[in-house]
């Protein structure tokens, strides 16, 4: 009897706790007018700009730090902490004049000495900066000196001209080469926390749960309108709380239930349901990322261009893109992103479905119906859908595709090693068309992850990186597109789609071509 009484009282206490907790939670969840709660798919890796990072990390860190230059919405590179910059005629001397009155988050004024220190830290191998190969001679540029001749001027000298040097400095995966104060690191050089100059400063970070950014009251905005990562920024809310919500169904429930204000990465499959809610707004934009199917041109079967071409002709691209993206994306068979200023009529040409021609090519190549494996994963649903739809469409021409589903890490490993026949894949955004082609073109013997092993194409890409004249660059890109359609090392189908859903009380959010959401200028309706 006593045991029963114990059980009853314990259950009673638990129920009371639950009830009380529910009431408290209800009152606690009342929206605070100056806090924006945004979903993160996964936690960030670190707060060190461009060091231990991934896309999620970059998107958060870019609210805290700013570089000398920044990426504008039209992918041009414009001054940010610099008031202006000059590139000397020799193409190797970059002179930046700093804006006055810029404060770090610790209250210190920004000086050229600070900038030189921050840049030298990035260029030091001990920092493990992701973009070091781009500035130490292994890539496009080799920085030979960083100088601060006076408090407002910074000079960077390169060994040889590198037209894409500023583009590299502004890359989000390089942390925008954000200028941080010396107190961001300890006496031994170890990372502490970012003391940047951005509109928000780092608040509390509970790993695996949330990260909070606080408004930086001394932030001095540029006078130009906001554009991309550049222009006039303003911290409109007191805090931004990035909540780690890995499960998409829970994230959707959180948005609809009001626990999260903004979901920057909605799945295409959930869009219709979210759009039907009257209190939710949705923004859809195209990004420069490219999605499609890769061929391993070293594979005994796939090395035959006739088979690759036959697959390209057998798959109706429009149908594939429509089915995979729920009609959100448009077919683009070019590696050139459709939003690029270099995207012209030439890039609009692509593969025209032709089953008869595909069958003829297959016969000529002696294809005997042997299965061809196409790799995909379910972490990125569009890759899986691409493989499935391609499998169905290719069958019309008698091509047997077998879909092999792997986890993302395994697929990435197979991609890196060049160990596949076909693969549904998506590349993240690159700021310049040269960088897009550079990602694809290269000698497979040395760089197994490259998909297009063609020395002439490689020479064209190298030339596009050296060339500064837009007309000449356009010609190079046109030629690259034509050759890619001939060689068929991959089939690009569409550019990335970014879907953001947010509550109607969120005002001022604007999507842009880069995947990373920007929350400066976003405010909350009371």
């Amino acid at each position: 009897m006593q045991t029963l009484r114990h059980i009853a009282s314990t259950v009673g206490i638990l129920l009371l706790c639950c009830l009380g907790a529910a009431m408290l939670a209800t009152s606690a969840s009342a929206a605070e007018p100056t806090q924006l709660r945004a979903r993160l798919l996964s936690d960030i890796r670190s707060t060190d700009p461009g060091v231990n990072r991934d896309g999620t990390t970059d998107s958060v860190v870019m609210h805290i730090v700013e570089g000398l230059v920044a990426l504008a919405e039209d992918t041009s590179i414009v001054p940010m902490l610099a008031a202006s910059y000059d590139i000397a005629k020799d193409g190797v001397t970059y002179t930046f004049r700093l804006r006055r009155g810029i404060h770090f988050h610790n209250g210190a004024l920004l000086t050229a000495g600070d900038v030189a220190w921050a840049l030298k830290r990035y260029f030091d191998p001990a920092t493990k900066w992701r973009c070091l190969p781009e500035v130490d001679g292994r890539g496009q540029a080799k920085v030979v000196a960083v100088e601060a001749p006076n408090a407002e001027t910074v000079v960077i000298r390169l060994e040889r001209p590198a037209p894409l040097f500023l583009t590299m400095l502004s890359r989000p995966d390089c942390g925008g080469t954000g200028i941080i104060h010396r107190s961001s690191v300890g006496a031994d050089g170890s990372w502490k926390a970012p003391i940047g100059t951005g509109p928000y400063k780092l608040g509390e970070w509970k790993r695996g749960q949330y990260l909070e950014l606080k408004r930086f009251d001394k932030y001095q905005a540029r006078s130009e309108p906001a554009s991309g990562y550049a222009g006039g920024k303003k911290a409109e809310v007191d805090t931004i709380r990035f909540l780690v919500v890995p499960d998409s169904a829970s994230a959707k429930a959180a948005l609809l239930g009001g626990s999260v204000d903004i979901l920057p990465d909605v799945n295409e499959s959930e869009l219709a349901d979210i759009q039907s809610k009257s209190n939710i707004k949705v923004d859809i934009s195209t990004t420069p990322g490219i999605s499609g199917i890769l061929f391993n041109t070293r594979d005994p079967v796939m090395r035959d261009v006739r088979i690759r071409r036959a697959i390209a002709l057998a798959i109706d691209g429009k149908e594939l893109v429509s089915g995979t993206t729920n009609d959100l994306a448009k077919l683009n068979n070019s590696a050139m992103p459709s939003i690029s200023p270099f995207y012209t009529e030439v890039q609009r040409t692509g593969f025209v479905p032709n089953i008869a021609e595909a069958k003829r090519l297959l016969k000529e190549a002696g294809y005997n119906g042997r299965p061809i494996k196409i790799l995909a994963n379910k972490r990125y649903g569009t890759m899986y859908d691409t493989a499935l739809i391609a499998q169905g469409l290719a069958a019309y021409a008698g091509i047997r595709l077998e879909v092999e589903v792997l986890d993302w890490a395994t697929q990435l490993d197979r991609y890196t090693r060049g160990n596949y026949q076909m693969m549904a894949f998506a590349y993240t955004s690159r700021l310049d068309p040269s960088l897009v082609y550079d990602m694809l073109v290269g000698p497979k013997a040395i760089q197994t992850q490259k998909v297009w092993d063609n020395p002439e194409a490689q020479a064209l890409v190298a030339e596009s990186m050296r060339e500064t004249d837009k007309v000449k660059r356009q010609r190079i890109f046109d030629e690259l597109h034509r050759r890619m359609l001939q060689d068929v090392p991959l089939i690009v189908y569409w550019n990335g789609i970014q879907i953001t859903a947010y509550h109607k009380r969120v005002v001022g959010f604007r999507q842009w071509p880069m995947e990373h959401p920007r929350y400066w200028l976003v405010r909350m309706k009371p």
Partner: protein
Amino acid sequence: MIRYIIRRLLMTLPTLFLVGVSVFALIRLIPGDPAQLMLGDSVDPGELVEVRRQMGLDQPIHIQFFEWASKVLQGDLGVSLSDGQAVLPLLVERFQVSGVVVLIAVMAALMIAVPAGLFAAHKQNRAADISIVALSTVLLSIPSFWLGLILLLTFGLALGWLPVVGYVPLSTSFLIGMSFLVLPIATLAVIEAGVLTRMMRASAIEVQRLEYVTHARAKGASEWRVLTRHILPNAFAPTLTLVGLILGNLLGGIAVLETVFTLPGLGRLLVDAIFARDYPVVQGCLLFTALIYVLVNLLVDLCYPLLDPRVTAE
């Protein structure tokens, strides 16, 4: 008793060693590595080599193992390759979340399952018994993520009684913390109650057929007394074994539930670490889980004599 406990604890050492070796080897046999995942699609061979060197992955595997093992023997499980956090404090922190959910859920499940199983056994083959068996079968068949989502959508979204995402430690605020834990606990409790009810019922049916129960009834003991004093303790022993196994399994991680309810628990840590090929965290999690499993089952074994005097710890 003490000697028995020490002997059992010593027996865990080879188990943990084998777990350590196999986990270390298996995680490295899976394709993919953390350096590649960090670099993503823009991997450059030189860059990959450099990042692998920074992560210590360029060393021969046996060197990596001995370095790791020697640190483990000193109580250092290494640091996460993803974010540089020390693994041991990370495990302890995450275990506190999973531990609270699992312990309360299993307690709640027992509170439901023990009386329900006893009652069903008492009313064997009658409507009440059939209903309880049917219900418990349904409960144990429900996937936890589905039930979790249904509860989340009902109590979080439709009724708005409980928060949908987030977590507040109980040490910060017990009531608010509980508001985040109610749904995962309820989900787990309901499902485990189904399993335990069936076990409790089966054991009780077996025990109530024994002669000493008939003897108790013949002596004129009330049905309540027969159930609680004579059937319950003996019928509970097999259920306790199951509780040990359940606790061992669940304490090792309730990854799906933790993902649905965004709880920063041990299971989610392990799954995230596997996807990120974060070797030190995966190794640490599995070693920790094996240790928990062994300790919980040792505790269960030590509880047997309390229920059945015929069983001794020796």
